């Protein structure tokens, strides 16, 4: 056996590969066997091949630390995160249930507000949410779909169970990395992949396009779908253009769109063309300067009015952000019980709301042990990880929480599961999470797998790309037996 695993420590965390020292879990047997036979040189060569491929393909994101917007590759780790099929079935059921309840919640909140009237969720909390859009009360979006795309972040705790950490119902990003990671893995480990019978992910963009077409006005025979991007300097521009390319639709900026006669058009070399569905990767606030932020140069004046008249569909609809407010998240299990009459399949992480007096007291007394999050931030910003913070940082947050309790929630510091990761020329455990992508069109569809993010710094629990995180390919194994041929191939070639 190679010495790549010599420095591997088996701590108190759940490890995705090892059940114990030298005891791989069944879903990892083949990959472990392959890694165990691999020399250091071979491993580094493969990592270099993967990095080069990403750079040449321009799979990059933009960082703004130096004001110039430098492009970086999103660090990619060679060792896949592998999910057995039974585990995935469970996750799929849990996520479908959650998506169904969230859609019913949004419909309710923008119409009858039964859940508030019956006191299951405090009215205050919803009405004070920054992303609750009063302008949308009473509005019915196409096909009664109030949310079409959700990226739900899952973690696996020390007990080996999955928990939902948060929902992303505005414009969740990262799916292009899932698809690109898979392309690169196919190049780097072709035979290994074939022998493991990994479920494919490529159908995602096809499903996404169908989800979007489902929203078009019914009388239009060939609807025009566009992806609306804030522009090439946005950190996720690569993803916007990737998705447009894969779906074969136009990618547009706000300035490409014009509103005339209650319709939206895009400006082409042959005059104006009508637009029927907009997959917008711009937050509500910036969509239309005549309704939301007046200073927005990214949006389209008059767009919201056309949307309200039903002449153009938006994905996600306006106002979904109220459901990804981290304080609303606390009530999702309650929504599942209220709307579906079921118990949640996937549990939430224990959460404390600083807007309720009892919880506030608890939070302030236990700050060094907790993770505190600002309710509307994403990307690992506006967050305190108590055990890893200095006294000053903790006191700074204490003051912020007292000043605005509605703006924060707290959760116990959870030891995320670890996955073997290439670090410093050897393999070490690093913490990971998982973001599956859930589409809600004519039915709920979930791509098998999702984005596994990995905290590359030793001991770090923060997986966001802006905070030193990387990603891994996520393999969901199929139940189907591995075809004979690829087994043979593995013996011959690997």
């Amino acid at each position, binding site marked *: 056996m190679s010495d790549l695993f010599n420095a591997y420590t088996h701590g108190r965390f759940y490890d995705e590969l090892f059940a114990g020292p030298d005891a791989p879990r069944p879903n990892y047997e083949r990959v472990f066997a392959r890694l165990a036979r691999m020399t250091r040189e071979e491993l580094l060569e493969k990592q270099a091949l993967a990095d080069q491929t990403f750079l*040449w*393909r321009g799979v990059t994101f933009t960082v703004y630390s130096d004001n110039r917007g430098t492009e970086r590759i999103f660090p990619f780790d060679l060792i896949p995160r592998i999910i057995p099929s039974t585990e995935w079935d469970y996750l799929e059921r849990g996520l479908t249930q959650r998506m169904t309840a969230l859609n019913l919640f949004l419909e309710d909140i923008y119409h009858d507000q039964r859940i508030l009237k019956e006191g299951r969720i405090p009215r205050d909390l919803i009405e004070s949410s920054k992303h609750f859009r009063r302008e949308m009360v009473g509005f019915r979006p196409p096909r009664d779909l109030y949310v079409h795309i959700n990226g739900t972040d899952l973690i696996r705790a020390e007990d080996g169970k999955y928990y939902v950490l948060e929902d992303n119902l505005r414009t969740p990003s990262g799916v292009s990395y899932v698809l690109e990671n898979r392309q690169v893995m196919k190049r780097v480990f072709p035979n290994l992949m074939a022998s493991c019978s990994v479920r494919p992910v490529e159908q995602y963009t096809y499903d996404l396009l169908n989800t979007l077409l489902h929203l078009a006005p019914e009388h239009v025979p060939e609807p025009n779908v566009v992806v609306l991007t804030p522009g090439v300097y946005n950190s996720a521009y690569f993803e916007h253009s*990737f998705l447009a390319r894969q779906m074969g639709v*136009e*990618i547009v900026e706000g300035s*490409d769109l014009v509103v005339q006669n209650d319709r939206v058009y895009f*400006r*082409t*070399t*042959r005059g104006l063309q009508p637009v029927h569905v907009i997959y917008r990767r711009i937050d509500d606030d910036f969509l239309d300067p005549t309704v939301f932020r007046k200073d927005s140069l990214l949006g389209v004046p008059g767009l919201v009015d056309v949307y309200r008249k039903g002449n153009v569909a938006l994905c996600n609809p306006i106002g979904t952000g109220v459901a990804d407010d981290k304080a609303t998240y606390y009530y999702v299990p309650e929504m599942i019980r209220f709307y579906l009459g079921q118990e949640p399949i996937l549990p939430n992480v224990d959460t404390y709301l600083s807007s309720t007096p009892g919880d506030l007291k608890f939070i302030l007394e236990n700050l060094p042990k907790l993770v505190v999050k600002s309710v509307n931030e994403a990307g690992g910003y506006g967050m305190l990880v108590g055990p890893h913070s200095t006294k000053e940082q903790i006191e700074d947050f204490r003051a912020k929480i007292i000043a605005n309790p509605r703006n924060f929630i707290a959760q116990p510091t959870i030891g995320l599961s670890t996955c073997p990761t290439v670090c410093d020329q050897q393999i070490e455990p690093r913490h990971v999470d998982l973001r599956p992508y859930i589409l809600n069109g004519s039915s709920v569809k979930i791509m098998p797998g999702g984005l596994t993010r990995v905290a590359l710094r030793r001991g770090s629990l923060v997986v966001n790309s802006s905070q030193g995180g990387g990603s891994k390919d996520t393999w969901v194994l199929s139940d189907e037996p591995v075809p004979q041929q690829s087994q043979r191939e593995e013996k011959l070639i690997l």
Partner: protein
Amino acid sequence: MLSRVANLTYWMARYLERAENSARILDANTQLVLDAQLQASDLSRAWEPMVFVSGDDKIFRELYPAFDEAAVVDFTLFNPKNPNSVLACVNTARENARCIRDQISGEIWEQINRLYLDLQGKTVKDYQRIGSGQFLADIRQSILTFYGVAASMLPRNESWQFYELGRYLERADNTSRLLDVKYFTLLPSVTLVGTTLDAIQWSAVLRSCSAFEAFRKNRRGQINAERVIDYLILDEHFPRSIRYAITQAEEAIRAITRDRDHHFSNPPSRSLGRLRADFDYTVIKDIIEFGLHEWIDKLQTTIGSIHTDIEKAFFFYDTATAKIAG
């Protein structure tokens, strides 16, 4: 297609063509200087014209104290403050390609991205170490590979036509600038006309357009000013001649406007068509009599106004009065 995308495609093509031609003009000048066996005191006069014909001499003077080789090479290839340096052109072309990645295949993008990555951080030191000939040949090769990949991958739709339009308009302009370099280099010593050195210099001009062999095959006999100018401006078949470039640009605009009503009522079709027709009725004597430099100046102005017509017709028209399709 989207006006913004058409504009980006058009400029991507223009900037790449410009980068290629800057490398060619630099190569031509290096050859001219080598062959001229100049005294040290003449060297600055040998490098000044290059900057002058690009029209960027004002920026140059702000950046460098003198027109020596290292300064001109840095300015032409590497200085990001010169918007027409090869580096700046490649960066802009690649940025445009990034904006239209949904329109181009992965291979096309990878080719321009690699050209971009190869150029980052390079300096005059690298240029000197590798040698001017090899360094410039590598850049040309990389851009030519891009053209090859693009030609074999891009569907021949409107996007292709805007790419062609940009590429050939830029080429017509750039080839005229290349001829101008020779004009300025010659200027101080009119007595040289007709000498061996003159023939050698005109050969260098031909080589920088990769036209030497083609010229030899097509026009037997001696190499002199009139014959080389005739070939590079008026030849019907050589792909880097100005006439060929203008003809291709006109084909592109015809394809873009083909299914529109009254396409000659379209200002860019009209101005480009008129320019193309001019070439059909021009012989080299006319150009010499008009004055080569003056003729080139006039051509560049016409190309500039065709560009403005293109912008107004396709990229930045007024939406309030625009036609609504579908």
